[in-house]
């Protein structure tokens, strides 16, 4: 496993060097090699607890069913932290002293590389082609009118905000931030993921909450409204 990661990292580094002087024609190959240094772009043969601790970046083999393309193009050029604790929060969590709350050692969370506008567009095209067959059902989210209970479900009744930061500037938690989720994520993905996170990774630390579909619909609708303020 380690050797594979090393080879991937080396490929990534060497292509990084080459990319600066190469033409756009090679971009697709180069980018796919860079991404695979940290991300799975094909469904892993086997998931395991150890894999969650070893992988360097979130899985991208279903990126085309997860992300909004416009967000990808923009984020890849100017990547802001989505996971305050990195891809596996527990690896960078420091024990609190004298019964104080644990903290994230932000210095240990690597920043994502920045791409040029042209490379970001190419990478986004490649990523949008990765659909992760059957993981996300199109039309799962019914786009019902906003429900006044949704925000209450999100912040209190279903406890989403315990693990997901919902306001910019909030302290890092164990899950990805959701305050830009409306820009970032496709509603059908949000619906599919909340319904069964283990379908995406059998070992993920997002629990299967067993919510009824009415609640999942409301939450998905609400999460879709969470967008970054700078527009």
């Amino acid at each position, binding site marked *: 496993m380690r050797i594979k990661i090393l080879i991937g990292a080396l490929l990534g580094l060497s292509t990084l060097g080459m990319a600066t002087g190469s033409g756009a024609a090679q971009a697709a190959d180069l980018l796919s090699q860079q991404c695979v240094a940290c991300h799975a772009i094909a469904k892993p043969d086997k998931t395991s607890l150890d894999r969650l601790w070893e992988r360097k970046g979130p899985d991208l083999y279903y990126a085309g069913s997860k992300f909004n393309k416009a967000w990808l193009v923009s984020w890849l050029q100017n990547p802001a932290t989505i996971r305050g604790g990195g891809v596996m929060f527990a690896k960078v969590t420091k024990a609190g002293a004298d019964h104080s*709350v644990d903290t994230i050692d932000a210095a240990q969370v690597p920043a994502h590389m920045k791409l040029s506008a042209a490379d970001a567009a190419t990478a986004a095209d490649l990523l949008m082609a990765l659909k992760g067959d059957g993981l996300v059902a199109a039309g799962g989210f019914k786009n019902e009118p906003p429900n006044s209970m949704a925000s209450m479900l999100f912040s209190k009744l279903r406890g989403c905000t315990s*693990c997901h930061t919902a306001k910019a500037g909030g302290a890092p938690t164990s899950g990805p931030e959701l305050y830009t989720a409306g820009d970032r994520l496709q509603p059908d993905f949000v619906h599919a993921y909340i319904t069964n996170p283990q379908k995406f990774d059998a070992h993920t630390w997002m629990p299967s909450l067993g919510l009824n579909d009415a609640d999942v619909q409301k939450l998905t609708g609400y999460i879709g409204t969470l967008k970054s303020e700078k527009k």
Partner: protein
Amino acid sequence: MRILSRVHFYALVAGGIALCSFDAATAQESAHAVKLYNTYCVQCHGVNRDGNGINSAVMAVKPRDHTDTKAMGDTPDETLFKAIKGGGLAVGKSILMPKWEGVLSDDEMKELVTYLRVVSKTSAK
């Protein structure tokens, strides 16, 4: 090696492994429980296991302090198991403790109950 035939050699190795296997199996199980705790429980219950996980700062109900010998000692194994499997609601506690059924197997949840007895310095009840 000439005195020992290959078969004898393997037999000796197998015998050695068998002798150690009881302790090794227990140690392995407990290492696995620690890994499970550090993956799933630590986000709220904390590195010190005292309810001060990174998520606890924003939670309306503070996660259980697993080092609290008194409170943990008063809680039967069955209740701990139910809380892990069915979440807080299954034992009349907060919804913020999610159910881990579907993520952890029953055996893994039992390992965690055993591990909680070590953390809280209490015995099975």
